[in-house]
């Protein structure tokens, strides 16, 4: 999967959890927690990403910095899928 494809798929997973957010606001470097992701759906985000990409995040990877923006998530998934 190319980086662009990873980005698109990640955007779709995030968008599903932010139904009220205009997709134009969901840019790659936008803080998704600022847009409305919170403790209520963060766990769902992690599970949905794992399912969508067929990866398992370990506890050290599940930190705020890895899930703050689409770019952060894509970087993490790219690293895991290459490994």
């Amino acid at each position, binding site marked *: 999967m190319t980086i662009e494809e990873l980005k698109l798929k990640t955007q779709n997973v995030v968008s599903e959890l932010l139904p*009220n957010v205009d997709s134009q606001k969901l840019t790659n470097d936008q803080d998704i927690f600022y847009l409305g992701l*919170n403790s*209520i759906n963060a*766990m*769902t985000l992690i599970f949905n990403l794992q399912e969508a990409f067929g990866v398992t995040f370990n*506890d050290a990877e*599940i930190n705020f910095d890895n899930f703050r923006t689409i770019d952060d998530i894509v970087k993490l998934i790219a690293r895991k899928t290459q490994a």
Partner: protein
Amino acid sequence: MLYQMLQKTVVEFPEKTALVYGQSRINYQEFAQQVRGFSQGLEFLGVKQSDCVAIILPNCPEFAVSFYAIASLNAIALLLNPGYKENELEHFLRDSNAKVIITDSIRAEACQQTISRLEHHVDLIVVGQKAGNSLAFVDLIHQDLENWQPQDVYTGDVLYQYSSGSTGRPKRVCRTQKNLWHQAHNCVETLQVKSSDNILCLVPLYHAYGFGECLLAAIYSGATLTILEPFSQNGVPVEMPFVFRRARVLELIEQETITILPAVPYIFSILAAAPPEPYAELPSLRLCISAGNFLSQDIFEKFRQRFGIPLRQLYGCTEAGSVAINLESDQEIKYESIGLPMHNVEIKVIGDRGQELPPELEGELVIKSQTLTSGYHNSPEVNKEVFQNGHFFTGDLGKKDEQGYLSITGRKRIFIETGGHKVDPFEVEDVLVTHPNVEEAVVVGTKQPYTGEIVKAVVVCQQQCPEEELIAYCQEKLADFKIPRIIEFRSQIPRSALGKILRKDLV
């Protein structure tokens, strides 16, 4: 009475660690010294018996120091959710006539704005970097304690909290030092908390659950209270979803050999989903308490499967603190049971005609305890209904089995349980209908995985109105956890033939 409780522990365990917070640790002697020093600072500001001092802090050692300093002056601590917005703070501060606010640098500006709208003078004390004409918490901890004398044993008012009770809108609950002493005593006796215990504080201390099972239980018994420190970025605390703190929480449980973990089902569900590495098990834990929301069988089983420890449901309320817990043996424990009444507590199941019901019949749970408030402030009609002959009618429906084990079967009241918080739908509706375009609003909870429910608003608008505008409007006026995540527009709200709103049809 509460200062003497602390003093007794200090005499017995002066060198024992009282609080752990990040890299800092203080023992009971040091803690009591800070309490005395800060109480002098408050006295210097003019705080005296029956004055109200608001604590608007996240969990931190200063919360504990502030509370005991206030109690040692026979004053009253008002505990408020640090997530409240200015208009919420204004309402509570005005209603309770708070003379002093203790907060942190993040919330100082909001508090200053709120104070400027109040009619009476309020001093602002700030933990961390002070702003404007506020006072620094640390500067008020007097070091010269030679003339400091504890007040005589006092059993009067010491705590204000707001509760929606069984009938909706928040009402002020006042509890006395005697109520809280009994709460601490009942908890420690029932749970057999010892000075050798280490309690991990993840639940908010401003809430009756964290306040009782963490702070009061630790101070009464001499146990160590480990408070999860906030995550900091460039020295600034950053609030983040619990799942991103999970690794730190598991590390703390192991490092601090935590024995007692009070939390809410939402937290346990996230812990249960932790990968098996690096913490395959948590051998130090002896008691995992679940309260705040209904514990599902799914979370109970997943947690037990993951860590081999049963979750034990505890039941309580702001009006009386904790009153029941399930301490059945590991083999026989039933996830849905809240167990037996705690030490010195009586719980009856009462039918519609006021009669006590036999086992297996559902009725309203009614509490009698020395921990119980005498009533809600300024609410004579509600008080007449829910406080009768020293009994509190909780509004929760439940039943007893043949052995006396209690379980909750429903609620008379309707709350939305979301991510460890309870949201009163009427409060959110009240805000939405003040928007100029909203004609009618009904707020409900819709089920979601891992979170319990999310807040959904169904609105009827006079003119077209973007969702974003309504959400931004709520963000100005409500704490974040109360803000609707879904807004649905309808031309009318469904009602029964008798005009009752059909909430179930809106979920």
